[in-house]
């Protein structure tokens, strides 16, 4: 079963449905899809690595916290992520190694500003042998 991403038709903001056969794949694909909304991932070299560890009380909130942390790397350190590896996950905790580099205004053409991951229609569901993660981003 293929991992894939579908863009939702939200009027003011951007939303994604991400489909994957396992939770680690879902979180990883959603993270890359999020970064792709901001920048062409081919232009981001995996020069540095960061370890991310995120906790939350339930899987939906963990999904949002994880995506928020990826966004925070850009907002706080101007660090763009293009590769995600070693995803370890249970229902309340995720750890992963993320690779990328510092934002370079010349090489990285930013598509749009992503303000925050909202809680509106947020969810991780298991439907028909696959996981679906849904999130809407304020842009």
């Amino acid at each position: 079963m293929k991992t894939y991403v579908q863009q939702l038709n939200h009027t003011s903001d951007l939303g994604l449905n991400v489909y994957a056969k396992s939770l680690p794949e879902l979180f990883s694909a959603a993270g890359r899809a999020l970064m792709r909304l901001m920048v062409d991932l081919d232009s981001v070299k995996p020069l540095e690595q960061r370890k991310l560890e995120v906790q939350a009380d339930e899987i939906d909130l963990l999904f949002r916290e994880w995506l928020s942390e990826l966004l925070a790397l850009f907002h706080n350190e101007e660090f763009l992520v293009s590769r995600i590896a070693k995803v370890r996950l249970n229902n309340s905790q995720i750890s992963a190694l993320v690779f990328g580099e510092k934002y370079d205004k010349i090489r990285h053409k930013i598509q749009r500003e992503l303000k925050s991951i909202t809680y509106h229609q947020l969810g991780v569901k298991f439907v028909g042998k696959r996981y679906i993660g849904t999130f809407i981003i304020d842009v």
Partner: protein
Amino acid sequence: MTAESIIQKSEYLWEIPQTGPMRVPGFIYATENLMKQIHQDECLKQVANVAQLPGIVGYALAMPDIHWGYGFPIGGVAAMDVTSGVISPGGVGYDINCGVRLLRTNLTVNSIRPRIKELVTGIFHNVPTGVGSHGAIKKLDRKDVRKVLLKGARWAIENGFGSSDDLNFIENSGTLKEANPEVISERAYQRGAPQLGTLGSGNHFIEISEVRDIFDEDIAAQLGIQKGNVAIFIHTGSRGLGYQICDDFIKVTLQATAKYGIAIPDRQLACAPIQSPEGQDYLGAMRAAANFAFANRQVISALIESTLLKVLNLSPNDLGMRLVWDIAHNIAKIETHEFQGKKYSVCVHRKGATRAFGPGSPDLPAQYRSIGQPVLVPGDMGTESYLCIGTHKAMQETFGSSCHGAGRVLSRTQAKKRSQGRNLYQELAKAGIFVMAEGRSTIAEEMPDAYKNVTEVVNTMQLAGIIKKVARFTPLGVVKG
């Protein structure tokens, strides 16, 4: 929400009747034509959701520019009783005190049109735009950010950006009292420090406009607006600092929602009783972010003024740039309103809605008290914008509130599809509008087709008697983030 469940009250007003967990009905200001567009997304369901929140007074309101947001709809107004009601960070939005200011000038369109590229290019270079933009002014240290959070636009003036007269023409004189910088996270401070005086991205813009039509000569003259002259609109907010504060406090209020046993139909409506410690902390933090936004627009005004003076080689007197008004359209404020003959102290959430106080309001500066508060309604970058004023009827019906813009009608994906194969820069240039943008997707996503007709939106509110049109502006040059 089905079309059948909604009752048409008049040619401009519709009601979502109070059913199920709704505490009050929902009222929507729209013409029949706008209502058809409104039905296309999920915003009416969001109006009904807001009507479920504790302490809501009267009705959950929607302006004609309403569209699907997250939690609250964009174009929504909700007044919560200060003693029994709640405050919701989602009812303000991530971009706290996103707002608009209008500046008038002595410049004439004929003298500026040949130089519009120079002016737009100058502003584009002097006001940092785009994602994570910074560097307009020296990076603030934590102490300075704290001062901005407490003083708002006054900080900008004390630091050489504009004159103290400007404060008369900003909502709440550019400073919300009782801001609390102590409850703001380090992350928010960090994000704010380099971003004062920056435009940001998305729908934020600076527009050089022509005063095209005057609908009320007397009021226009009092506001310094003259047909054929050039004016400037600025649309931006509290940047990363505001986004971070909203994010931080949705977490706080999600816990408060559970702690106080409040039932909400959507997590994004997380809220806390206004009088609770969580509610008070959010109010203090939100006011601080609002002050950052007032300061941001004040600094940007000064950067634009210095650009115009330099490019056009004029004296400040010849340029005659003066602030007409600065409004917040993502905010919650404690105000006193009369509803059905009873006085209420309410927390008015305006998310994608502007304050529109009528004549005589003590909150207006002496210069504007007899005419009412200016209401700024920018359209999309290819059409037109309006300057209006609030009325007595706004005070009676909408808690002194009105529309804030055209309102989106196409999603960003739909807009991009529609823009394929088109050169939007050229299309706008053909219409006499010179545009510069930082974000690669901005122009397509913000194309004129993505928005409702702003004239129809403004006319609806005028028909309802909530605002009165004063002047219409058309764009000459636009800087987008």
